[in-house]
């Protein structure tokens, strides 16, 4: 494609110009990539330095080792302290637990709801669809105070249920699944399965779910990430430290050990590394899911 438009330009030396513009483009992109990656590199470096080295070196401490870096002065001490003294494993586990359960529950509720709205004609379907659309514009902070009050009245404060249950009805997800199922599940296969006598739930789980796998994967990831990074929810609902996910406990850690930069940075690495790895493994699903609709913050 590129060659075809090059032949149409009448420049004296198109290849030289092309080389120049490519070099320029790559320089800008590489600069932007470096700016993007520097905070990550700095975070990682700070988490394996001693407090003394934190103040005297920007990235890794300089010394006589390979590459001019004092490799022997690096330490995993901050990580050791987090796991052995401060019990961060519990918070890590909590984060995994609340994020996985939310992702599974929200994806199940949203895909079933979206399927009902996309593939059934029934009295009330247009009302439900309007409710789902209207719900897309409700800002989450508006529900914070009344939601908290209701969870208090149910006696669910300081429990996993109080945080997880409200997160399992994403109107945004129902809308996404409705559109996706509408577009990519043909009516004919549902009809022929019904003629063969298959039950409705069997049709959903054996025919619709496999066809929707990319969308389901993307939505699982988005809801997992949303709960992993959720701070205000667990901060408001939980009181017992043994329920805290990483977002709440690392923020508290920063309040208590505000001068212990290495410790805080190590805690932050533990908090963001799992989702970054997950993303690296599943990036294609992730991006397709993002552009399929929108992420509601």
């Amino acid at each position, binding site marked *: *494609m*590129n060659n*075809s*438009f090059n032949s149409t*330009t009448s420049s004296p030396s198109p290849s030289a110009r092309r080389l120049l513009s490519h070099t320029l*483009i790559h320089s800008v*992109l590489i600069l*932007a990539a470096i700016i*993007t990656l*520097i*905070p990550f590199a*700095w975070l990682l470096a*700070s988490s394996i330095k001693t407090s003394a080295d*934190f*103040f005297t070196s*920007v990235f890794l401490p300089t010394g006589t080792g390979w590459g001019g870096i004092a490799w022997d002065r690096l330490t995993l001490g901050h990580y050791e302290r987090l796991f052995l003294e401060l019990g961060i494993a519990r918070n890590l586990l909590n984060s995994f637990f609340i994020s996985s359960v939310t992702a599974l529950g929200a994806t*199940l509720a*949203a895909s079933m*709801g979206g*399927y*009902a*709205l996309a*593939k*059934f004609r029934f009295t009330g379907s247009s009302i439900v669809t309007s409710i789902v659309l209207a719900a897309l514009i*409700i*800002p989450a*902070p*508006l*529900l*914070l*105070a*009344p*939601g908290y*009050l*209701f969870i*208090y009245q149910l006696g669910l404060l300081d429990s996993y249920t109080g945080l997880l*249950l*409200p997160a399992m009805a994403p*109107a945004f997800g129902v809308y996404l699944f409705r559109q996706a199922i509408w577009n990519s599940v043909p009516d004919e296969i*549902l009809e022929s399965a*019904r003629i063969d006598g298959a039950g*409705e739930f069997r049709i959903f789980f054996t025919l619709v779910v496999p066809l929707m796998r990319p969308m389901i994967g993307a939505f699982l990831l988005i809801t997992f*990430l949303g709960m992993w*990074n*959720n*701070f205000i929810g667990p901060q*408001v609902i939980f009181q017992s430290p043994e329920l805290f996910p990483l*977002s709440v406990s*690392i923020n508290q850690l920063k309040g208590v050990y*505000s001068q212990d930069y290495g410790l*805080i940075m190590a805690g*932050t690495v533990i*908090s963001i590394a799992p*989702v*970054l790895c997950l*993303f690296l493994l599943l*990036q294609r699903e992730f*991006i397709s899911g*993002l552009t399929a609709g929108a992420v509601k*913050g």
Partner: protein
Amino acid sequence: MKLCATSSVKAAPWLFLAPFLLIFGAFTAWPLARSLILACQQTFGPTNTVFVGLDNFRFLLTDPLFWTALQNTFVYALSSVTLQLPLALGLALLLNRPSLRGRTLYRLIFFSPSLVGLVFAGIIFSIIFEKRTGLVNVGLHRLFPVFDLDFPWLQNYVMPALILASLWMYVGFNMIYFLAALQNVPRELEEAAMIDGANAWHRFRHIILPEIKPVTSFVVLLSLIGSFQLFELPWALLSGPGPENRGLTIVMYLYQTGFLTNDLGYASAIGWVLAVILFTLALTQQWFNRKETRS
């Protein structure tokens, strides 16, 4: 066409919708209705409430903290969006070449910061913007020795620090949307313009920009809505509202009044003001879109 008269098929959609509708009704619809009543009450904690009518809203009008929060949020939203989106579009334009080597890697790198939760980003940047030891001051001082190592980002320049942090987080995120939109611009259109002698700027202004307009307006709305709900990033960056409340935002004020001073009623009133601002933004976007399609 897909309607069957059997009773199992009639009940089926409701069974599929049941989990969503039950939870949504209990934890979204009911709290939403309740918030209207709550906004007219003064509370201390969840149990002590007094009906005060519209007093909460009246008090909001003269509450200097609320005005500070409103002002900070507007400044943040407008400046971060006007900086974020051109940069995001610029990166997307550079990346939108099928022949570009390392395209997937670049995209991956630029996108990665948006996976970092706002609290975690706030914590990282609180140390990056430290005086003397922070990466920003040390880096700038090494590059330009005149730059003051004690530059007080988190004391006097809270808003610039917040906006820089938000650029790091969201430029790559918005780039993904622009990239998806650019990939749908018909290549023939651009090539035809090139044969007609249109230069790069003209091609951008008259072909690309009109083609990606719907996505641009969607991204603008999405970024504004997100910006107006800013809370965790400044909360973690400044360990609170910051000196002289320079980092106080609407949602932060809502959180403080609802959960630190325990007035859920006043918090709900703030929530409704936020909702009205966001509805207005969404309606304005709709109006713009409709005007565009008519002309």
